């Protein structure tokens, strides 16, 4: 561990130290606002180190990590998203925890999860991969069940816990098989085996498939998507946003690196596996979302489909694919944050606003909130002027570039189908307010008239990001292009 190593690890170290400090701060004195601000600043400072670190990259730190621009970019995504989630969470928690009983650990767990996410982005080794993933997963598990007084979060926590550990077990077993076959736990080392022999060893292939299944489970790709809607629905809204964005974004970063390093796309059977996962995810996600009446579940299903789109881009391989995937991740994070952010901002003490009925006529009572949700949904649907369009453009472009015609057709077909349910929600926003304002459970709706300035600021920021990317994506494209070329360059340089 040289000084240089420490420098490139600054972001991770910084956040790790902040985790510890936050814990101490909580132990010292509980104060919701202060801790929230503290966590926010932690992310902000970490974010600030990224450009500084960039000059020293790329650099491998031990066999476990590699810090390159690609990783830094994803770190940036993860950190920005976390900051937004913190912004959204404050008011939400304020309402949920009237008793002020143990709110503060929430931020600590959030920071820890983010820490795990950062580790994932730089991992090139099974150990760091696995540990990062578990850091993220365990923190999330606690966060999902954080509002432990309500039934749904607990139910979601149990489901997430059990299924996520199953996923870890499968992943670990796959890794073990790969290790058994190749004698190496670095991604590239694992990939070397295949490059040296003519026929791909079955055990190796099995290991890779298991690892992919583990990742697919965490990402919620069909047919391993079952837990997604339940967890999304049960988790507190800001955490749902977090699961949908940070955990997936970081994992995609890792997946892209893994796929690139082991050269998975050179093996037809793995390409077929990915194609299958992509198509099934798109179809299943969209079909399940079609007539869904619960907004959070609907968004969950849509996220399954979006991961499918993303896989199409990933499958294309090559520089365009990496670019497309990264772009898509950014766009996807922004619009998911936007949609779940509105759910968060519109939630109340009795529970999250998740029924369609809650949103009927929202545009006429709270136009900005509704506009934000509409914008996010249209972005998810891929309508121009929103970032979603450019994202979809990129995905299609990658697919076309690689000549994946059937996948591209599946993608656009599914986009059309998905439009239906997004529009269903949008049209609800513009509907007429129902006469009797009760939820199906018979609870009177006291629709909140305020959402806290932090949430509003975050949403505004997200909206402007969606619009800016949608209208002038060039700077972001350039950034991604340089970063991604780094990933590929490293991949080619050091075999």
């Amino acid at each position, binding site marked *: 561990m040289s000084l240089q190593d420490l420098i490139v690890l600054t972001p991770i170290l910084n956040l790790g130290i902040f985790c510890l400090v936050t814990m101490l701060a909580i132990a010292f004195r509980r104060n919701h606002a202060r801790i929230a601000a503290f966590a926010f600043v932690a992310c902000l400072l970490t974010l600030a180190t990224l450009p500084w670190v960039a000059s020293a990259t790329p650099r491998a730190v031990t066999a476990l990590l590699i810090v390159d621009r690609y990783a830094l970019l994803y770190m940036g995504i993860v950190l920005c998203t976390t900051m937004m989630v913190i912004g959204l969470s404050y008011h939400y928690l304020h309402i949920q925890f009237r008793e002020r009983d143990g709110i503060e650990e929430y931020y600590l767990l959030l920071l820890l999860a983010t820490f795990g996410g950062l580790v994932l982005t730089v991992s090139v080794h099974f*150990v760091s991969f*696995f540990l990062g993933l*578990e850091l993220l997963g365990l923190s999330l598990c606690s966060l999902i069940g954080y509002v432990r007084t309500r039934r749904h979060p607990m139910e979601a926590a149990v489901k997430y*816990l*059990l299924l996520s550990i199953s996923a870890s*077990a499968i992943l*670990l077993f796959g890794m073990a*098989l790969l290790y058994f076959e190749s004698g190496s736990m670095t991604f590239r080392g694992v990939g070397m085996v295949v490059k040296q022999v003519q026929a791909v060893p079955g055990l190796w292939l099995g290991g890779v498939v298991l690892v992919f299944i583990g990742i697919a489970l965490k990402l919620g790709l069909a047919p391993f998507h079952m837990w997604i809607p339940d967890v999304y629905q049960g988790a507190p809204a800001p955490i749902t946003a977090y699961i949908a964005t940070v955990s997936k974004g970081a994992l995609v970063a890792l997946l892209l690196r893994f796929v690139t390093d082991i050269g998975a796309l050179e093996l037809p059977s793995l390409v077929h596996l990915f194609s299958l996962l992509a198509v099934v995810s798109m179809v299943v996600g969209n079909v399940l979302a079609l007539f869904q009446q*619960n907004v959070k579940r609907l968004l969950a299903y849509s996220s399954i489909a979006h991961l499918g789109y993303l896989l199409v881009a990933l499958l294309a391989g090559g520089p365009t694919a990496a670019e497309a995937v990264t772009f898509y991740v950014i766009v996807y994070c922004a619009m998911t944050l936007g949609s779940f952010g509105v759910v968060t901002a519109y939630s109340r003490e009795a529970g999250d606003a998740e029924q369609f009925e809650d949103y009927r006529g929202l545009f006429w009572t709270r136009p900005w909130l509704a506009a934000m949700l509409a914008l996010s949904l249209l972005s998810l649907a891929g309508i121009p002027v929103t970032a979603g369009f450019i994202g979809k453009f990129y995905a299609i472009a990658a697919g076309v570039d690689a000549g994946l015609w059937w996948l591209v057709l599946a993608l656009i077909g599914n986009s059309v189908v998905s439009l239906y349910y997004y529009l269903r929600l949008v049209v609800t926003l513009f509907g007429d307010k129902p006469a009797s304002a009760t939820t199906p459970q018979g609870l009177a709706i006291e629709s909140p008239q305020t959402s806290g300035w932090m949430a509003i600021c975050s949403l505004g920021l997200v909206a402007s990001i969606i619009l800016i990317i949608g209208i002038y994506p060039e700077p972001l494209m350039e950034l991604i292009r340089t970063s991604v070329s780094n990933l590929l360059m490293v991949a080619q340089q050091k075999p």
Partner: protein
Amino acid sequence: MLSTPALLLATMLFGLGLIGLLSRRNILYMLLSLEIMLNAAALAFIAGGARWGQVDGEIMFLFILTLAAAEVSVALGIVLQLSYRFRTLDADAFSEMRG
């Protein structure tokens, strides 16, 4: 070399764990089954280490152990909370969210 039979054993243990996970309704048992699966993975790593004469497998085992410890503590926390609130550990009872 015992590494290949060990891998076989690991696979069988993994399978047994999986069966346990699928067949038990009590969350506690499901957790136990998961522990078995993790253990199986750990065994597979050890077998890999033995095959290549490396210590990496063992090190991975250590980390899996750490995970198991951390995970069990969270899991048991949840189990306790569930039993406080809902007076049941039947996994099928927690299916209010669906569709």
